[in-house]
């Protein structure tokens, strides 16, 4: 398969569970090694890169998860500082950056709390702050709202949109929820049983008739507006 994510896009990857969405996302920072083919991020080819360089590239790619994956035994402050420590940022600089990131997600007052003391939405915000710490150009999101309730989901989607708009970060969102794609994605790819079966931009009002019967995601996302152009 071949997939190009436009810089500055919010690119949704949608499909049923088990379709291989997470696998595709993990390929983008090489958490998953491809059997063949290449992965290029920001003009740099990650495949075949020595371990040490690859780690440095990963520091410039943020990632958030469905289960947040924060370190439960560390405060919010320390959680956000970890990626900075890994990147070798000085202590004073780390503190400043940690503050900025927590401000950005609106949790500056929770810095000394532990993740267990926060709500799901707040935990995802901390995870976002952590992912933004090293000023990434790319943010990978694996089902970022799938364990949140609808109103918190809307909050987090708002944050993701804000990230793209104010920081110019390219965002890739893996999801099985149609609403996520409809509300924030500018580009959409559809996956089914390990394969990319469709990929389109939502600005493309045009709707080409499906080659495969199950292209319904495109119909659903582009909706009637898409249809009326035919």
């Amino acid at each position, binding site marked *: 398969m071949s997939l190009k994510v436009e810089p500055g896009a919010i690119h949704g990857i949608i499909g049923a569970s088990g379709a291989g969405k997470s696998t595709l996302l993990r390929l983008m920072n090489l958490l998953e090694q491809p059997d063949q083919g290449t992965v290029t991020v920001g003009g740099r080819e990650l495949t075949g890169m020595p371990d040490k360089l690859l780690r440095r590239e*990963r520091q410039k790619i943020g990632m958030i998860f469905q289960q947040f*994956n924060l*370190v*439960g*035994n560390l405060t919010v402050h320390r959680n956000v500082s*970890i990626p900075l420590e*890994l990147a070798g940022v000085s202590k004073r600089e780390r503190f400043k950056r940690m503050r900025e990131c927590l401000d950005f997600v609106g949790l500056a007052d929770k810095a000394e709390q532990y993740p*267990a003391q926060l709500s799901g939405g707040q935990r995802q915000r901390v995870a976002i702050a952590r992912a933004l710490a090293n000023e990434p150009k790319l943010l990978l999101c694996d089902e970022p709202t799938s364990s949140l309730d609808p109103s918190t989901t809307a909050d987090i989607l708002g944050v993701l949109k804000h990230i793209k708009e104010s920081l110019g970060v390219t965002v890739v969102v893996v999801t099985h929820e149609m609403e996520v794609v409809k509300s924030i994605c500018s580009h959409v790819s559809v996956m089914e049983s390990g394969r990319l079966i469709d990929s389109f931009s939502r600005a493309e009002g045009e709707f080409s008739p499906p080659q495969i019967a199950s292209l319904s995601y495109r119909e659903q996302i582009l909706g009637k507006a898409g249809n009326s152009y035919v």
Partner: protein
Amino acid sequence: MFEEMLKYQTQMWESIGETFIMVGISVGAALLLGLPLGTLLYFCRKGQLYENRTLSFVLNSIVNIIRSFPFLLLVVALIPVTRLLVGTAIGTIAATVPLSIVAIAYYARLVEQSLLEVPKGTIEAALSMGASKLALVVKFLYVEARSGLVLGLTTSTVSFISFSTVMGVVGGGGVGDFAIRYGYQRFETEVMVYAILVMIVLVQLVQFTGGTLARLLDKR
């Protein structure tokens, strides 16, 4: 019983000192070598990050053999090793050699178990941030597993105290040996009870300290 306590006061303190040396060195060995060994056991396991069947099989076999050996026989079997390491097979320091070897194997297994409880997602997040192997272990795994690691060390320490009681066979001394020599063999039941009470207090102290520390460290 107070008379007995006074009568053997010096010997008792000496025995407590010997127990501390034996158990202290074993705990040191458990931390210094058991912790890395347990971490290696964890990483080599099937489905873990550095899955390695051969190494996993070899390490597991060693740990299992040490742990299934009747302890007294292990002490005897290790006499040549002990002689090689500390120059003699008799005395408190010599007794720490078999104790430490058991301690390493014992704690390694508990470390492996604690690390297995760390969610896979934490490791995933660490790798996505570009963490090196060392950073993954120190900044993520040990941090997230820390209360389990402390509880494991507590359980181990209690076992080492128990193991140390039979070290009289190689002249290791300790409170257990005191109970046997002064209490049991001389038919001084009160002395024996006294020594056993000391052991109980020691174990309680270790368990209480470890349990409290583990609780305070757990923020999850």
